[in-house]
């Protein structure tokens, strides 16, 4: 099982750039890129911050596939 996410989709729906979202959750643009490409698995704290920022439930944002 691989942890995947719909971050890019929800980020674009919200109209944020990777840089903007990164600033809002206090991480670098590179970290957002890495998460979107499934390279980096964020901590629970960061995942919840992102979900909160995008107004989406965490289980919709991150899922196992």
């Amino acid at each position, binding site marked *: 099982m691989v942890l995947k996410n719909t971050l890019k989709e929800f980020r674009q729906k919200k109209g944020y750039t990777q840089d903007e979202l*990164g600033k809002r959750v*206090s*991480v*670098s*643009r*590179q*970290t957002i890129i*890495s998460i979107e490409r499934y*390279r*980096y698995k*964020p*901590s629970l704290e*960061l995942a919840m911050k992102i979900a909160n920022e995008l107004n989406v439930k965490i289980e919709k944002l991150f899922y196992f596939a």
Partner: protein
Amino acid sequence: MTLSKKEISILIEIAFSILFALIFLPYFYRNQETVFVFSEVIGIVTRIIIFSVVYFSITYSLLEFNYKRTITEDERCDMINSKSYKLGYLLYEFSLLIFIGTLINSSIHQNGRIIFLILVLLLIISIIKSSYQFYLHRTF
């Protein structure tokens, strides 16, 4: 290929290690048979300190001038740092064992050779650690 500010700062560290090896290592290589005393090495130590200060002042000033944004140290950076420093630590331990073994099994009495060997080990490990850190930043 676009590099982030963090990646460039790692490249600056790698370049420093290489420059240090090219500029100062030959001196210690030539003086391996020497028994150094502090008063004799004060000149080279001063040159190393001045070189380091000038090098990092210039490179980081240029970096700050070209990249206005500050480096965001987040959890991904922490994870990359812990992985690369762990590798560096293991290499230090391993090289220390080899170094002690070399000292026991040989009759190295000149501290010049010991200093040279330590510097070579430190530079190699530093370059490997920073290269691995750079690799992780690019791929992770």
